[in-house]
């Protein structure tokens, strides 16, 4: 006779189903609560099995300006988990959602409460919280996290309208990407890990020039005007979220080339919060110390302007953080491998995994500098975090998880 002890009992939500199996032998399944009821009048044992979808979805928040085709970051992230992320098959072709075997990425623009016309009428930008339905965002992220599928609206960036919803089923990894993943406190509580992509003004300007200069309607002035006009709302509503992020990827102009304003060579800082559960910051050589490292020299020849790393503890909005910084770019495979071999706590499963992941997306922007490198490393850290969470859940299935 199998005896199991019930520890703390999670409240039975609507995701649970009740059945009366006729089999007398019951195997123990971590997702099932099994009740034996011994009736005194007969010798037959009645058993009731309650199966709950344990909701082992891990939720990641990614805050970034400009749309949800943060394709570069997202594709790096999903490829770490294996498999390519595709839009939902056969659905609305203007859907912003990406789905792979393990990961689903949704765009928070889908929670706009005002469509383009509505925003124009009310005089609010998409950056303004008044244009977004945080109640719905919270409800749906909560539902997905607890294993319940939702019908999520679609915001169509081409027409500017809110389209009929699409079905989102709870995946292993659920990424919410957009302008406000950490704005609402209730949604923040649901995030297992959060990232903020912080692009400095100079780099933003350089990137938008690269993005828009080929467009007929645009000029240097219009690109500049667009950034300036959005800045007040951005500073008021989006930027403050970075204090809540577990990891911030800060992108700045290089310090290796004086007066460089092309934004091609970048200085990238990976700011990692200390004390985050399941997250061990990446470090160089000696954890907690301060390091300055130029890998180019006798063993490694680099082309101009070279590569410079630094690592050390800092404070960020009152939190203890560790910062790993890379300035410069690599243009050879062996530079990348060399650097990878000197980084610690990168959560790779085999030697060269970072390099392999970088090569996979070699023609994406950032593939030769810190943006691609740190995005890839963050992806590996998230995989590690996910595996730890799953391992801890199966070890103690009835314990309440972090709320």
């Amino acid at each position, binding site marked *: 006779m199998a005896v199991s002890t019930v520890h703390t009992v999670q409240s039975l939500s609507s995701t649970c189903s009740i059945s009366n199996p006729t089999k007398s032998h019951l195997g123990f399944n971590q997702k099932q609560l099994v009740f034996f009821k011994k009736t005194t009048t007969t010798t037959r044992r009645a058993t009731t099995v309650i199966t709950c979808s344990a909701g082992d979805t891990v939720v990641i928040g990614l805050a970034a300006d*400009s749309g949800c085709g943060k*394709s570069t970051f997202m594709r790096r992230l999903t490829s770490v988990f294996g498999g390519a992320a595709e839009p939902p098959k056969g659905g609305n072709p203007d859907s912003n959602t990406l789905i792979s075997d393990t990961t689903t990425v949704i765009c928070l623009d889908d929670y706009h409460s005002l469509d383009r016309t509505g925003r124009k009428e009310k005089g609010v930008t998409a950056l303004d919280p008044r244009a977004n339905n945080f109640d719905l965002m919270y409800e749906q992220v909560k539902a997905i996290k607890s294993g319940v599928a939702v019908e999520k609206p679609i915001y169509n*960036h081409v027409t500017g309208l809110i389209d009929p919803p699409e079905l989102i089923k709870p995946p292993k990894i659920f990424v919410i990407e957009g302008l406000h993943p950490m704005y609402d406190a209730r949604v923040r509580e649901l995030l297992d890990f959060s990232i903020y992509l912080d692009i400095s003004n100079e780099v933003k300007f350089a990137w938008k020039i690269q993005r828009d200069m080929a467009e007929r309607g645009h000029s240097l002035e219009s690109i500049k005007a667009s950034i300036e006009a959005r800045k007040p709302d951005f500073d008021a509503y989006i930027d403050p979220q970075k204090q809540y992020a577990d990891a911030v990827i800060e992108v700045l102009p290089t310090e290796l080339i004086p007066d460089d304003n092309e934004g091609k060579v970048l200085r990238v800082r990976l700011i990692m919060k200390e004390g985050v559960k399941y997250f061990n910051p990446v470090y160089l050589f000696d954890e907690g110390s301060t390091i300055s490292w130029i890998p180019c020299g006798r063993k490694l020849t680099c082309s101009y302007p070279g590569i410079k790393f630094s690592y050390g503890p800092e404070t960020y909005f009152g939190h203890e953080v560790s910062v790993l910084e890379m300035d410069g770019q690599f243009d050879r495979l062996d530079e990348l491998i060399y650097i990878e071999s000197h980084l610690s706590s990168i959560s790779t499963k085999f030697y060269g995994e970072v390099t392999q992941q970088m090569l996979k997306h070699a023609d994406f922007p950032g593939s030769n500098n810190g943006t691609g490198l740190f995005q890839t490393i963050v992806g590996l850290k998230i995989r590690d975090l996910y595996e730890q969470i799953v391992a801890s859940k199966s070890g103690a299935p009835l314990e309440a998880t972090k709320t």
Partner: protein
Amino acid sequence: MASSFTPMSLNPYSSFRSASNGEINSTKKIMIKMNMITPSSKDGTPLKAMKFKGTQMREKKLTEMIEQKVVEANQVCGEDETSDECKVAWDEVEEISQAKADLRLKLEKLHQDPLESFCQENPETDECRIYED
């Protein structure tokens, strides 16, 4: 758009940079063999993935909208630079510019036509007519 790429061959790039960049050359060969990067046409330009009429229509529409909305924004902001209307006008420009860039990224870097799976299910719609250059 004939491609000189054959999966089994180790030397698909006729136009590829010569031995002076031997290191990149050999790395790329490995990457092609491992299906890590996609083929190009004979002159080295990436094969454009635009397949359906609907995608071409979207691209055209977005281009026109960018032009139009920039003009609008300049107009509105000319009247009052600090107004909400001015902010919103430039925000619209940003939204459309990003949407266009996302479409370009999909076509040029990912070699996917966004209508691919929709058109598999609905091949008879106007949007799913094959796009002729």
